[in-house]
């Protein structure tokens, strides 16, 4: 049995230890907001927070995550879109197909938690997730908008 804490809920799961966290979240836990894009830590579609740090869950065997670590997925961020990053995303109508956006939002919230006032250059360097639809400029603008509102 593997025990995980996801979005403040504790799950006891029957999975092989080498199963990537992504697939445990999607298939055993049933939270499908976290996406599969590449499986090799390249695209960031599978980004979740582990103890607040943005982590590509497709490349993490579930056995390396302890039950003390707090996993947060897009569903746990704020279901009613109250998080300033979600608000900024809504305000600037960021998503196109939207498939990458769970990962983008999780990467952006982790970035702002660690660095509430990132420079444009820091945003460019930190935000390495792929968006095939090409929403990068709106993502960047939304992070700046969220940074401003969070800083009050």
């Amino acid at each position: 049995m593997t025990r995980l804490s996801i979005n403040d809920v504790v799950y006891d799961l029957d999975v092989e230890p080498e199963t990537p966290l992504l697939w445990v979240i999607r298939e055993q836990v049933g939270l499908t907001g976290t996406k599969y894009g590449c499986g090799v830590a390249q695209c960031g579609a599978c980004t979740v927070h582990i103890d607040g740090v943005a982590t590509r869950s497709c490349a993490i065997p579930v056995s390396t995550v302890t039950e003390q670590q707090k996993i947060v997925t897009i569903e746990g961020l704020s279901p009613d879109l109250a998080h300033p990053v979600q608000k900024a995303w809504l305000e600037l109508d960021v998503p196109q197909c939207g498939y990458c956006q769970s990962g983008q939002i999780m990467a952006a919230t982790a970035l702002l938690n660690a660095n509430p006032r990132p420079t444009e250059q820091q945003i460019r360097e930190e935000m390495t997730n792929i968006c095939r639809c090409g929403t990068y400029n709106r993502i960047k603008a939304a992070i700046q908008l969220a940074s401003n509102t969070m800083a009050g």
Partner: protein
Amino acid sequence: MTTLTVPRRGFLAGGAAAAAGLTLGFHLPFGGDASAQSVTPEVNAWVVIKPDDTVVVRIARAEMGQGTLTGLAQLVAEELECDWNKVTWEYPTPGENVRRGRVWQNFGTAGSQGIRQSNDYVRKGGAAARMMLVQAAANEWKVPVGECTVAKGVITHAVTGRSTSYGKVAAAASLLTPPPTDSITLKDPKTWTIAGQPLKRLDTPEKLNGRQIYSIDVKLPGMLNAALKICPVFGGKIKNFDVTQIENMPGFKKAVRVGDTGVAVIADTWWRAKTALDALPIEWDEGPNSKVQQADILAAQTEGLTASEAILGSKNGDAHAALASARRTVEAVYAVPHQHHVTMEPMNATALWTPQKCEVWTATQNAEAALATATEVSGLPIDKNEVYRLHLGGGFGRRSSSQDFVRYAILIAKEMPGTPVKTIWSREEDMTHGWYHPATQCRLIAGFDDQDNLNALHMRISGQSILATISPARLQNGRDAATFQGLNPEGPESQLGYTVPNLLIEHAMRNSHVPAGFWRGVNNNQNAIYLECFLDELAHSAKQDPLEFRRKLMANHPKHRAVLDAVAEKVGWGTPPPAGVYRGLAQQMGFGSYVAACAEVSVSDAGILKIHRIVAATDCGHAVNPQQIAAQVEGSFVYGLTAALYGEITIANGRVEQENFDTYQMLRMDEMFDVETIIMPSGGFWGGVGEPTIFVAAPAVLNAVFAATGIRVRQVPLSKTSLKKA
């Protein structure tokens, strides 16, 4: 206003709707906006209004990020005169479309046609619904319909001071006979208040909290999952596999042949299915294609560049004679490789097959084609098949080029009758079994007369035809007309923007075993690189300004010239750019729209390219949602430049060498540049938006790279050429 009376008849589709009755039976367990689905009778095929005034607009075309869903809803809402804040949507199914005599017409979403080809009938759908709703109110009040006015879904009879809302009269309206189509007058776009506005998308909120259910997220009771492997060599077959090696693995249910080309493992979860499949010993019959190398494909193209026979694209004057007598000639060969679509959501579909019925849940750009595929593969009559539509995690032509993801899902599910099976392609499977942007080369020869005017141009394209792969029946005497996108002498779709006295454009078709498909922008992409980069070469050879050189050839093409002029003016062409920054131009017309771009770039001594700014102009006739057009323009540069800078699919031993993002690089935020979009709809026509800007992305940047370095990059991707200072 026409008077409408009971009983109801089918609207737009003759009597078919009446025959189908009023119960729609939309069977969308979670397709579309679940909250929008209701048993409320429709006003007509396009509009359902619930008692609480919620307006549900039916969307036939697919939403894959391009914003068509919101744009189409705006057009319907505009004519309906409803309250935009109450608008939501749902996807009708293709099975319902068949049952109702194609009342929603075409579901196909490709060629940037979603809005431009359906705007007329969806607007009429909105207008007809409005007429019926107002009539219903007039009937109830027993007043002349002409005395009633409507605004934001509220109908008013000023004379008697009464008013009511759409939601209150919708049930009565649904019983009225629809107005004849020719009695419907559409609004002048100049008076639009919902269409034409930069409104927010209708589908954003659920993309921000994980609630959006994509096809890959579908869950059904008792569902199993399948992982798929098709022979890595195109055209190869499955010979054998040894299931004894994996049948004790966790979650394993079954290993099955998929047609004669592949094998799938079905398990309780997809990860277990994939793990077992990876461990499965498989023997392939790779066939003769396993000997094909990239060099063979390129050699065939090179041969075609000068082969004596070629298919005529278009001609005027006598290019051969004019070149023979030219004062001077310029010649160049360009090459563009295969590209992969790489939708962020890999191919997938869920199928539930029984001997009585076949149901499919998937993300497709053409749900009617998906239904046809289901009908073919399921072995059941068309009315025993259904396809439920979900938003696409990217399409870009992949999900219209083929419905192979539906085919495989059904073949697999047929091995488990009564059990829903979701088949997901791994990224590796997806990338190595695509429908690739055709690989072509082009030889261009230009001749100048005694005044050094461009007098002759010969363009010989050599390489793959998309239609020869996808739909050979659409070839005309062996000619693939789509090869000449952007180079046609006339027509509203993809017209060449230049007049050259002696012009010859040809195609030497050289197909390989690599499947070609429609890749966002399609053949316009390479044709714009060929022509726009070569024109830049010609301007430099004539020591003329690239803008003025083009403009002289554009007198007969004022719309092409207008977008080019617009970017030149906005970028400040003719004034010096910032120190170290250089500019390049391109224009092209395609999918009914006129586009142009100017790129500003710098190249360091070490050869590092930086794109600083791109100014782009689009004349799409009518602009339904300017902020979404701007989003498409920006995204198009990312898509087009990812290919121009990095994209290349290559073949070794008959198979694709690139399997994932580590070997097929994407443009990311660190390289992103500013995009300034000029939207200049000139009216009188409807052009597409999702693709056209891609055409000009690569040539504008490549021309700017030449301005910066003097290096003429004639081979895409640019990453193959060193820009280091000698």
